[in-house]
């Protein structure tokens, strides 16, 4: 009796210690993440604008911003632009990253050096990447445009044409971020055990069959994680759009976070912008759940 009492006491003590140990982390989490998120939520329920400080506490129509957003064509257009941009950039980054990872997955000093070179775009500050592409896309100073003109294939400005502007952004984004997927997939490829690969080779599998039936199965979880990371990151696309097109021409490259930025910081509709941001948080959360579940199912398989 005394022992069991002591044991229960020890368990309780242990739980208490765990909780105490967790407390600082929870406090930091609360301050850094949950606090601002709550503030964002509260602000989104008001028509807050700094020109009228009274609006900070105006909760007379808490869902007004959300109603207005859902009825605004510009918002829905920005969502569609976002979907287009995310789909294209994630697909091209995964394809380019996987292709290069397969090519670089060989023991060679030259390939190791090349691997480091491929990482350069990813480690450049985003604003520098944007400026590089701004130069490349500005016809009168662009070496790319000059070269194309010189070989008899002149191309009109890509970033001021609504049909090509989003693809121009996607190309720059892919250049910047394919090294991330390449790095992840290369690491995964190097972890694939040799035995099943050798067995497949002995059975007569060619390179494509070897990749499809053996290596892909091993790297699939990493592939899912890479897609998830890039998908979530693509929703945060900002510097390229800001520098290259400013959301234009005519809103053709205005993704949802750019729309929120514009409403909040250019027009000072802080409440409205917060509501757009809340919808984005919700969207990213749902997206994470879906991708996570898909990834889990693949892992189970």
């Amino acid at each position, binding site marked *: 009796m005394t022992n069991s009492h002591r044991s229960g006491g020890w368990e309780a003590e242990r739980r208490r210690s765990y909780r105490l140990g967790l407390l600082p982390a929870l406090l930091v989490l609360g301050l850094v993440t949950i606090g601002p998120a709550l503030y964002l939520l509260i602000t989104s329920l008001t*028509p807050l*604008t*700094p*020109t*009228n400080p009274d609006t900070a506490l105006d909760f007379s129509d808490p869902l007004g911003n959300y109603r*207005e957003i859902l009825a*605004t064509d*510009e918002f829905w257009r920005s969502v569609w632009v976002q979907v287009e941009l995310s789909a294209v950039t994630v697909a091209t980054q995964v394809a380019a990253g996987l292709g290069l990872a397969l090519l670089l997955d060989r023991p060679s000093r030259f390939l190791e050096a090349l691997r480091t070179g491929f990482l350069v775009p990813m480690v450049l500050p985003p604003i520098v990447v944007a400026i590089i592409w701004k130069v490349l*896309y*500005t*016809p*009168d100073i662009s070496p790319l445009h000059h070269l194309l003109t010189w070989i008899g294939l002149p191309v*009109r*400005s890509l*970033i*001021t*044409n*609504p049909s090509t502007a989003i693809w121009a952004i996607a190309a720059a984004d892919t250049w910047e971020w394919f090294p991330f997927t390449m790095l992840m997939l290369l690491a995964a490829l190097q972890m694939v055990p040799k035995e099943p690969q050798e067995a497949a080779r002995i059975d007569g599998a060619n390179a494509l069959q070897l990749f499809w039936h053996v290596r892909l199965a091993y790297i699939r979880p990493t592939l899912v994680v890479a897609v998830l990371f890039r998908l979530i990151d693509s929703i945060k696309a900002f510097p390229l759009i800001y520098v290259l*097109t400013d*959301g*234009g*021409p*005519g*809103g*053709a490259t205005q993704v949802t976070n750019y729309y929120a930025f*514009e409403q909040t*910081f*250019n*027009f*000072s*509709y802080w409440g*409205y912008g917060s509501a757009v941001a809340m919808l984005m948080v919700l969207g990213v959360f749902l997206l994470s759940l879906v991708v996570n579940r898909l990834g889990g199912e693949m892992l189970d398989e």
Partner: protein
Amino acid sequence: MKHIARQRIRRRQVLATAAAAPLLMLPGKAPAQGGTKKLSGVTLNVSCWSSSYPQYLASYIPEFEAQTGAKVNYETPSFPIYNQRMDIELATRSGAHDVVNVTFIFIGRWIGAGWVVPLTDYIDNPKLTPPDWDVNDFLGGSTAAFKDRNGRLCGIPWIADVQMAGASRYDLIQQAGLKLPDNFDEMATMLKAINHKGGIPAFVAENHYGWTFIPYLQGFGGDVFRHAPTDLTPVLDSPEAVAAADFFCNMLREYGPDGALSYTYDQVVQTLKQGGVNYSTNNETFLVQMANPDSKVAKTCSLSLMPGGHAGRFPNVAGHGWGIPVGSRNKDAAWEFITWATSKQLFLRMFRDHGYSSVTRRSLIDMPEFREKLRINGIDVAQLYLDTLKLGSKGYTIYRTVPPYPPIDHEIDVAIQRIVSKESTAKESMAQLQRNALTQLKRAGVKL
């Protein structure tokens, strides 16, 4: 004995210095050299958007620091970045800045909301304002917009931004048997005649269309609001507005350089100076740079008044001025900076050193030296400047100063982009602009 006397003298000197110290700390009474300077220990944070005057000013700031002992942190971000950042800082009364540019388009909002302090008390105080600074020397048109509802001046203009027209290769226009256009019909004829002559496109406009398009809108008989500031109902889908948009966008599409929609004011200036494009309707402060020594077109450029339409001539006229945020903790020192930065002497030096001509002081414009130097290839630009200011005094630019205008300004940018890029027709795009403007006004709480 001598030793004792020296000690007494030292003691007297120390006592005298100690007694005088508090007096020396009074504003305006500190010695300019030797010992503590007037603003020693004061750090002034000054911000303005990047343009000719703010860039030139940077080279003189070390002199202000040496004279006063103040340390000046000076920044000149681009126009949109500046406005966006300052709007937030002023709204939150952060006190991060002591001297800021009061942007014309935000006058109604920043001054109306009381985010910058009235300067009348400083101007009227002879202890704080040098006698030769003279507020009445500023052009009436340039100061009028900076007054609050009580008539108090809240900004000191450093520029009277007036819109003109300029050609980098006037020789090509003459070869075509034409002159600089006086109206939009002549402009269309000229652009068609000179396009790609000399291997360069005929026309370019800064991609801030909420600024560069408006003289066309008003020249065609349209406007932004029905009757600003009393009736802010937008009229951006009127037949006149559609015709103006169609005309302007057609000029830009047919005669503009590749990627014309991406041309910022800086790109426009540089391209004109390099002779990369011929004609533009833009700010005088930008266009006169075609005559600078580093310009390739100094000998061939020419300027004229902004062309007009059948409804009249409506060149943009705006002003930007220095103000003091209510949150500043160094207001007196900030005023010292403003009086220095807008003094006759400094404007004159900027004019002589850099050719800065968009000055706001009448006494400078009237100087024979100024008039002579602003004679560009035979054109009296100073007179064009005064004539444009006179046109602007009619008040047709009041639409820019109403608080809800900034988002509509942006919507105009986007509407023009849609038309130039053929994403929409002028009629469709202006109808959408009208809807968006109504949404923006509703969101801003404007009752229509």
